[in-house]
């Protein structure tokens, strides 16, 4: 019934046996104990579960763990490097881009995907790119500022 998968999460290789129907988000949260990735809905609307799979943002509630076999996954826990916050994490903190924090990991990783594709987005482009991520606390105002902050910082670094 269970099948073996090998998934690299935040640089670490994990080999586990899972039910074929197990969702990637449950694999991360319940099998690996990485609870930074959240579940907010059943219909792939809210984006709380967004992680990077082979560098691209995916809703991990819509991916089976077996589909991630052989993939590289980055979750919010793996974004900071050597104790240094990623500019997006820093931006969300600086600009008060979060309140309850529940949507934040997915929001940050969706924004990460955007900035890879478009390092200098307009506010409108940021809002459009994040339309698959719901935030119920901030009204998105400061999330847009946070992403802009990160974009500027990444451009300076690059």
């Amino acid at each position, binding site marked *: 019934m269970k099948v073996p998968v090998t998934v690299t999460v935040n640089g670490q290789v994990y080999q586990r046996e899972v039910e074929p129907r197990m969702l990637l988000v449950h694999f991360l949260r319940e099998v690996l104990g990485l609870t930074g990735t959240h579940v*907010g809905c059943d*219909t792939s609307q809210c984006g709380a579960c967004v992680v990077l799979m082979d560098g691209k943002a995916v809703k991990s509630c819509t991916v089976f763990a077996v589909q991630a076999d052989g993939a590289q996954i980055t979750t919010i826990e793996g974004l900071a490097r050597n104790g240094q916050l990623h500019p997006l994490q820093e931006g969300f903190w600086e600009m*008060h881009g979060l*309140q309850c*924090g*529940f949507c934040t990991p997915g929001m940050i990783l969706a924004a990460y995907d955007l900035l890879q594709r478009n390092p200098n987005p307009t506010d409108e482009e940021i809002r459009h790119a*994040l339309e698959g991520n719901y935030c*119920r606390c901030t009204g*998105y105002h*400061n999330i847009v500022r946070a992403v802009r902050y990160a974009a500027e910082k990444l451009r300076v670094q690059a």
Partner: protein
Amino acid sequence: MATRYFGVAMKRREDPRFITGRGTYVDDLTLPGLVYAAMVRSPHAHARIKAIHKEKALQHPGVIAVFTGKDMVESGVKSLPCGWLLPGMKLPPHYPMAVDKVRHVGEIVAVVIAQDRYTAEDAAELVEVEYEPLPAVADGAKALQPGAPAVHDEAPDNVCFRWSIGDREKTDEAFRRAHRTVKVELVNQRLIPNAIEPRAAMAQYNPATDEYTLWVTSQNPHVHRLLMAAFVLGIPEHKLRVISPDVGGGFGSKIFLYPEETIVTWAAKQVGRPVKWTARRRESFVSDAHGRDHITEAELAVDEKGKILGMRVKTIANLGAYLSTFAPAIPTYLYGTLLSGQYEIPTIYCEVTGVFTHTTPVDAYRGAGRPEATYVVERLMDLMARELGEDPAEFRRKNFIPPDKFPYQTPVALQYDSGNYEGALNKALEAINYKELRRRQEELRKQGRYIGIGFSCYIEACGIAPSQVVGSLGAQAGLWESALVRVHPTGKVTVYTGSHTHGQGHETAFAQIVADELGIPIEDVEIVHGDTGSVPFGMGTYGSRSAPVGGSAIVLSLQKIKEKARKIAAHLLEAAEEDVVFEDGKFYVKGVPDRFKTFQEVALQAYLAHNYPPGLEPGLEASSFYDPKNFTFPFGTHICVVEVDPETGKVKILRYVAVDDAGRIINPLIAEGQVHGGIAQGIGQALLEGAIYDENAQLLSASLLDYALPRADDLPAFEIDHTVTPCPHNPLGVKGIGETGTIAATAATVNAVMDALAPFGIRHIDMPLTPEKIWRAIQAARAA
């Protein structure tokens, strides 16, 4: 007091854990031997339960137990209580699981406990329930019609209560001598809160100590404990510990005692293993308490000069199938009392009929009664201004309560403590460049483009609330707040607050207050909340009460700490206590600032008690319970500017300006964030959101695919400003800021759209103002 922190836009201290994925929400927790609960919910809005067959589910591998409502009741479990009683109100029982009948879609009929989440959900589908479907009614007005299916035998006409406020005869008289009147029928549609973290509960029972621990998504863990222990499960209160860790948004929906946490706590003892339940979003839609759902007829009367003579309001409030914890208070004392708005209105009469329907229970959702009142008042003000051909800003200004009339007694019970409404209006008009904008509106209309300017001059009563007052109005609780301040021997400080943060930033804002008062670095202050095992009994967070009530409780405790510390310092300095001053964390004799004892030195001595004032107890901690003297009354003006595309009916928000007065601001960053989020939810109601029930009381909008929450690209950037009129009756001078945006934004947005549509002669469209509704209204207007 040196204000090194108060008023500073500090970054939040709670954020590092959230931006790195180290927050701890209930569903993140696990325990050895943990098992999972899945709820079996009714697909019918109204049905008799003929039989429940557990066998197939029990035979499913991995299933541990299946329980029904009958099992719970037979073991002595009682009804979930209602925490606010109105005279003559009908109070039918509400068991955690239905026993004989189901009364709304989603009501729980059984629970399956299994070794993992997937197995529990599989087995829940194997529970066979035989239903005899019965006719159902979802609409509040239809439920009142003769022959409507009754939700409860106790209320055959579906009326839970009839409530009124104000002077009926005086108001009728005002309308008789009015120069002009306007009347409007408004639907304030039902909303579904949708905190992004679904509700969750995990419970553990220890048979050796007979103690329970419940982790639950709660805005008020002590209230959860009290209601569950004393009323439902009969657990001695001291044997139940309730922990509400990081909570992913509440907006009211996590105040109430729900069936699920009760079931999980009870089941943990039955199966002898810890049990966890986490709502799927589909469950949130049918089981989180909904908000609003009013049908209202409202009228306004003015004299020849356009001064308001009176207001008359009649509302049907849909309460859903059962009375949720604070349900009766929301459409009554949090609604009717706010109908005076910012205006001098000599007489108001409001009557409210609370109605049972076969729908999910309705209770407080961000703003709770006050957005509904503001919507009524501000729609009436706009309609009257249009009726009189006056500018809506000037019509409001003319009717404002002037600053010299405070404290102001309204005809609907509240006494406003302070206000300067014109100040906020002027600031908002200036920000929006009003005159130029009106000119531009005229110009664009000639080109067939329709922009609209909408106002909302709102008042809010929050900082809930003086205990004796709410007690006299039916509250079954006091609404004070607690704070325990514990100074450790090294001078570090832990504050245990009865408030609960689920996004509001108390860990930062409260620490700012403490660090200032004690003159210590903010890093030396820790704020603890959300655990009945460590925090003194507290009432929690809702009704924008944390800063004015919770913050004031902390200030009281800090005063006690400083008084005692001064005694110790005086002894150490060999000085008279009254000669010792405390400044910037140092105690010194007046005039001799270079001979001092630091707060940390005094704290250490409090615990050593070697060189110590005779008769003084060792230790340095203090607890307080602060009961507010009045509500606080934030106010402000919000202006929304929209453009409506007449070909598609789509609304685009061009600008949104908010000028709020919440008194002194502890942390502008946090306060602005609260306003942003509030506005987003208010706009959500105006343009997007709405629960849809069909004629069989099926909830059609039961997922995020079907229920439109505002997305990033639905909203504009917000322009935020404020005025400062300190609250005169609490030690911090603060009011509440958490709900202002939601209270104001709905009316401002709808008024803006109606202003845009004025050239078509369109007077009113009910929310949400979807492109389809607007397009249809334009087509109808063009055809006429």
